[in-house]
């Protein structure tokens, strides 16, 4: 076991996993929120764009999107996010993670919006708030609180799905695991080390989100 830790940068690989998760998660929250607002907006075109986004990315395999980003968008269309090949792939991995999970964030939020009684929106409008203001001040704060538990599930799935990025990048945990297995041969120990690494990342998050969903629940 000491060999593995001294010969390979396991913690560094998990650090990349954390970075992928953090930026992917941040992007997913932003994209998902925008998409959710579009999906409940009074404008039909907005609703169409929002639901098209969700349906396209929710129904496409993540592996396929990862491969498409580098093989398709970078090599064929020539769109790069960094000059260095590895950096380019890492940044694409973050973008793909954000775009893919944004669709799930959108649906979690939309189910949260549905937990907000219609009267809240009516009261907001009756006070004279515009659509944007009533979203920001009244609907979304309650929708976020109502969707904390499903949002937690999406973020945990995102952390584990960073392993899919291994098809285009080598730096993160699953990529390193592949290399170790290639050079050292597979063993239960290697599997356990990496599995434990992910549990350490995801379990506190799950506990945090469960307690938050209880603490922040809107009392009616």
């Amino acid at each position, binding site marked *: 076991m000491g060999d593995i830790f001294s010969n390979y940068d396991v913690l560094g690989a998990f650090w990349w996993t954390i970075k992928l998760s953090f930026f992917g998660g941040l992007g997913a929250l932003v994209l998902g929120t925008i998409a959710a607002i579009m999906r409940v907006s009074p404008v039909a075109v907005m609703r169409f764009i929002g639901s098209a986004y969700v349906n396209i990315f929710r129904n496409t395999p993540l592996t396929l999107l990862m491969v498409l980003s580098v093989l398709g968008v970078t090599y064929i269309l020539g769109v790069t996010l960094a000059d260095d090949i590895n950096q380019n792939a890492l940044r694409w991995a973050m973008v793909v993670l954000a775009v893919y999970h944004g669709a799930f964030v959108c649906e979690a939020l939309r189910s949260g919006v549905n937990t907000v*009684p219609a009267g*809240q929106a009516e*009261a907001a409008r*009756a006070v*004279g708030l515009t659509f944007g*203001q009533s979203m920001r001040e009244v609907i979304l704060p309650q929708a976020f609180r109502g969707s904390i538990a499903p949002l937690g599930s999406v973020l945990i799935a995102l952390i584990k799905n960073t392993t899919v990025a291994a098809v285009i990048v080598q730096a993160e945990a699953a990529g390193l695991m592949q290399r170790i297995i290639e050079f050292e041969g597979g063993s239960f120990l290697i599997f356990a080390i990496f599995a434990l690494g992910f549990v350490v990342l995801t379990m506190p998050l799950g506990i945090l989100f469960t307690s938050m969903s209880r603490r922040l629940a809107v*009392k009616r």
Partner: protein
Amino acid sequence: MTEPLVVLKDVNKHFGDLHVLRDIDLEIGKGEVVVVIGPSGSGKSTLCRAINRLETIESGTITIDGKPLPQEGKELAQLRADVGMVFQSFNLFAHKTILDNVTLGPIKVRKEKKAAAEKRAMELLERVGVQQQAQKYPAQLSGGQQQRVAIARSLAMNPKVMLFDEPTSALDPEMINEVLDVMVGLARDGMTMVVVTHEMGFARKAANRVVFMADGQIVEQDTPEEFFTNAKSERAKDFLGKILTH
């Protein structure tokens, strides 16, 4: 009647096959208190909600202070700011404190300073008798208290007219009076009010005019004394016979 503030002309609306508003013509003068009564499903709530366009109408016009109701957008939001609305189910913002409920509109819509908005909010909360609850959340208050906060929230916008959509129908009997007292006070102070209610006592005490609706139409309108003692239409006599015998 004083000069008309709210004018509805030939207003029609359907819910599917149900013709919920039929050729409604109604003028509400400045400072007037109009009570709308009628059996359930007569369209009185829809009428009330149409005045600030929470319900759209299919034909006809509604004007407030001479201005026709605009389409959904910034202009409509501005108009709604001038029209107070009190709902049957209170609809206080559940994630905000009582004080924040009252100051949200003044700060976000009227762009008032927070300190000034809070000072005025406390005065209004005191006026409706819930100043002690300012830092609590809506779910911690009784129904009657919540509805009084909802009235204070509307008043904070200095509305030209206030709409009440069955404000006491969701309340326990012992809480109805505390809300009605506030409403009678408002009426005395000259607020223009449209009140959909089943509280005949309030209509007698505070209304200038009673509008009786049935099947989407305004059947009859008169002063409260005249209407309650000497209704002209059969439909109104029948309705009053049912509710006043107990």
